[in-house]
């Protein structure tokens, strides 16, 4: 027999102004199961809370209803109070007679009548409440970081330095990502590799970081604190333990004319190669698509010359299984090529290049050792044109959004060109200059005022070749849209920053949502920028949206902080408001018939299949089981279950129907 206490709050005049608390208390006292009902000026005040605590002790209450403001306001307060008095906090409910009653209705009997019914509803519910206990989930204190560009590296280092293990996975043969390809970085013009390579080395040396290069995520299972992931370690074709990285294999490899990915196609590499000199790890891979041995079945020159006998032509991909507690996705971005612009020659002009290619030209370690030479004939361009928004802000042919970094790197490119080719002429066609950021606007102004880069406000309609020059047909909208024709030697397109081709696939593997452009979605655009809608999975860098280096690094550190917080205790506890599938003694075991309609409906893949077997191990029946770690308690499965085998703690069918019945 339940013993419910009802506590009606005046909230000063806020409730008492339109509702008659005394009458509510009086009527509540008569409700079946209610042993005590009282009204008080401010229930949330200390004396108010003591009133409740004392009543719980003296009246041996089995349930408490506080009729006051919205539970979204003070439920924690009163549940804590109940707990202090030794009552399970989930046996305390609130009737919202302020926001839903006194504040929205006139001072009439109807209003008091409504307050009474709201109380009755809650009384009927709380009678059927069961004590609940927070769910404890163990946490594996190892983080998986996907992608070892600057964001991934930063996240990995921060987590590792917080004292946790990190598995860092990179699909390319070396870590470093796009940043390793850059020449100098805006707005400080410090050399990209000079600031990045120390971090790369630190990653390689860090005792808490295990590096998986030339590896990709195969699959993810489990939930926050308890993910099981499979990593595919692609066959490098060498024994990394033996290889010293001496590089003789690359020198001797007869196939040397393969366009280098790292050089953005402007340089060449052999079939067995290390992407760039500072690569981490400094171990080669065999490019099986281009290796003579794999194509023709003979050659093996590298094998002959390798003193350590480290070449392994028969090496197979390896699948590595890891248990991790959190995942940081930092797989970065891709850029559109020059080939999708009909009006810019469908990429057929060798001297129309992308911004990334220009970075390689300008890089001291690049194919031209930092000299600006045009790809077609290696001549130094006397006139160069930069085109911003090449694909960005172009719903018709490109992408509608702004790629964010182009304004800055275009200014940088023009500046670098002027520094290297003093007498050269540099023009930038732009629509707007978006230089929001510390020292950014100043940087752009410097390019214009000190380095004499000419900015022309207008988009380029067409590029074509005539008399060995690239004719750039633009217009200057500041001259009233006057057509401007520039005969250039080289054109650099600030092509759009887009999501990786397989970003969608990654999102699906991770079970996180993504936007129409296939960038991964953050849990909240303002307040949860590094979490995803899947607990325990975080985003860092351009995988979430176009970003420059400072932003990517900041977000990476933020994600690392979130991971560290998650790892700060060996267990995490969650609200016990989750679904459960009933269990009965044999021979039923459960009313669940195993139709698994719920399985498809569950947004969190929280429904598992449990096989019930007899002692001999023969399968008796397969029933649904809800993973308490994954379930978020939406109750969709409950409503869906035809046989009412599933119920939602805190909102059980019994409770909800009782609430409805109390209206009768």
């Amino acid at each position, binding site marked *: 027999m339940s013993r419910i206490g009802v506590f009606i709050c005046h909230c000063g005049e806020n409730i008492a102004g339109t509702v008659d608390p005394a009458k509510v208390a009086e009527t509540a006292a008569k409700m079946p199961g209610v042993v005590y009902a009282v009204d008080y000026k401010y229930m949330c005040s200390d004396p108010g809370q003591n009133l409740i605590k004392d009543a719980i002790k003296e009246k041996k209450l089995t349930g408490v209803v506080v009729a006051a403001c919205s539970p979204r306001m003070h439920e924690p307060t009163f549940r804590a109070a109940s707990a202090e008095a030794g009552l399970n906090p989930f046996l305390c409910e609130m009737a919202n007679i302020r926001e839903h009653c006194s504040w929205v209705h006139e001072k009439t009997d109807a209003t008091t009548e409504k307050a009474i019914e709201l109380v009755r509803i809650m009384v009927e519910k709380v009678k059927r409440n069961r004590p609940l206990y927070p769910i404890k989930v163990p946490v594996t204190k190892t983080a998986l970081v996907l992608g070892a560009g600057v964001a991934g590296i930063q996240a990995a280092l921060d987590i590792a330095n917080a004292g946790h293990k990190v598995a860092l996975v990179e699909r390319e043969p070396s870590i470093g990502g796009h940043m390793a390809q850059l020449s100098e970085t805006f707005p400080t013009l410090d050399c990209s590799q000079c600031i990045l390579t120390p971090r790369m080395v630190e990653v390689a040396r860090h005792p808490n970081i295990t590096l998986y290069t030339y590896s990709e995520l195969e699959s993810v299972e489990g939930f926050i604190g308890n993910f099981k992931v499979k990593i595919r370690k692609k066959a490098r074709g060498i024994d990394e333990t033996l290889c010293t990285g001496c590089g003789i294999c690359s020198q001797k490899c007869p196939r040397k004319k393969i366009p280098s990915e790292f050089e953005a196609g402007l340089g060449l590499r052999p079939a067995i190669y290390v992407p760039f000199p500072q690569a981490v790890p400094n171990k080669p891979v065999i490019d099986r698509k281009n290796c003579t041995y794999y194509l023709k079945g003979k050659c093996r020159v590298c094998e002959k010359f390798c003193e350590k006998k480290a070449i392994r032509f028969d090496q197979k991909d390896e699948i590595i299984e890891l248990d991790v507690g959190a995942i940081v996705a930092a797989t970065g971005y891709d850029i559109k090529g020059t080939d999708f612009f009909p*009006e810019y020659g469908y990429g057929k002009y060798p001297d129309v290049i992308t911004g990334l290619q220009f970075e390689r030209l300008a890089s001291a370690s690049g194919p031209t050792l930092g000299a600006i030479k045009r790809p077609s004939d290696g001549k130094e361009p006397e006139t160069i044109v930069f085109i911003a928004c090449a694909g960005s802000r172009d719903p018709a042919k490109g992408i509608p959004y702004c790629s964010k970094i182009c304004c800055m790197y275009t200014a940088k490119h023009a500046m670098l060109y002027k520094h290297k080719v003093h007498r050269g002429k540099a023009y930038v066609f732009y629509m707007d200059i978006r230089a929001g950021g510390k020292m950014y606007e100043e940087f752009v102004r410097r390019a214009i005022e000190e380095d004499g880069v000419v900015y022309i406000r207008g988009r380029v309609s067409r590029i074509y*070749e005539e008399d060995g020059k690239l*004719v750039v047909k633009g217009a200057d909208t500041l001259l009233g849209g006057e057509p401007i024709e520039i005969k250039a030697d080289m054109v650099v397109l600030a092509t759009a920053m887009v999501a990786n081709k397989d970003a969608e696939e990654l999102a699906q593997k991770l079970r996180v949502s993504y936007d129409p452009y296939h960038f991964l979605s953050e849990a909240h655009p303002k307040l949860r920028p590094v979490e995803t809608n899947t607990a325990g999975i975080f985003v860092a860098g351009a995988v979430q949206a176009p970003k420059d280096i400072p932003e990517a690094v900041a977000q990476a550190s933020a994600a690392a902080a979130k991971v560290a917080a998650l790892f700060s205790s060996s267990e995490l506890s969650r609200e016990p408001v989750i679904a459960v599938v009933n269990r009965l003694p044999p021979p039923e075991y459960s009313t669940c018939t195993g139709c698994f309609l719920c399985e498809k409906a569950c947004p969190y893949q929280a429904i598992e299949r449990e096989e019930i077997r007899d002692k001999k191990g023969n399968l008796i029946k397969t029933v649904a089981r809800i993973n308490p770690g994954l379930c978020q308690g939406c109750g969709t499965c409950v409503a869906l279950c035809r046989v009412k085998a599933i119920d939602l703690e805190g909102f059980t069918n019994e409770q909800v129907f009782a609430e409805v019945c109390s209206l009768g």
Partner: protein
Amino acid sequence: MKLGYYPGCSLKGSAREFDESILALAGRLDLHLEEVPDWNCCGSTAAHNLNHLLSLALPARVLALAERANLNEILVPCSACYNRLATAAYELGQDDALRAEVSGIIDMEYKGTAKVLNIIEALNKVFAEAGEIKIAKPFNHKVACYYGCLMVRPPKVVKFDRPEEPESMDELIKKIGGEPVTWAFKTECCGAGLSVSRTDLVCKLSGKIIENAVKAGADALVVACPMCHANLDMRRPDIEKFMGKKYPIPALYITQAIGLALGLDEKELGLHRHLVPVILPERAQPAGPEKAAQEKPAAGAEE
């Protein structure tokens, strides 16, 4: 193969050699052309400049007549007419209310079933059906294929192979043993509509086109539009005056080029009607036959 045929006004007048060469080809490639009965002018630039509804109604009448005559595919050689008809079909296809209104204006129901083909599409169809074409006299010349505006733009209406630097005409030229040059003005505007009223502008635009073709080393300009031809051929004296420079390079219709390759007679193809005499320099090493041979798979691929 049978196609509806809408020659349009210019092919019955200033561009009759286009008409003649098409009919000559048709004879040779067993293409049966059935003229749209009692067709009228498409309204051309004038109509869509001055009266939107008229610019839809005039083509709509032509299309409706074609529908009545059960011609569901109509060859429209003149790019200008082709563009007007295609645009009308497109706009009326988008908006039923408008279609009803226009049907009212022309006193005929326009259903929107008739499909218009430009000359390149039609030729590709014919070649595809003919399979192998016997090249009597490879058109062994360096050719600047000039597509102009109205056959390739706007993409959402005409759906040509590609809006910038199209290729299908170059492919045809290769098929007949010619050598298309890469040049920059394939789809630049010649000044079309202003031919009479602002000849000065036409000279400027067409001048640039001829200049670029010559620079690219072309022996001949090949066109698919009477307007373009008028400006590049008839206007040549004005252009030469404007540019202060002589341009002997002839401008042929694609159909004439093909005709020559198939060994048709020059008169039959109306070459004598050009203002700029069609004199093509003989070229050494007839790259023609094997070029044509190479193209066979391509021809197959088009079926």
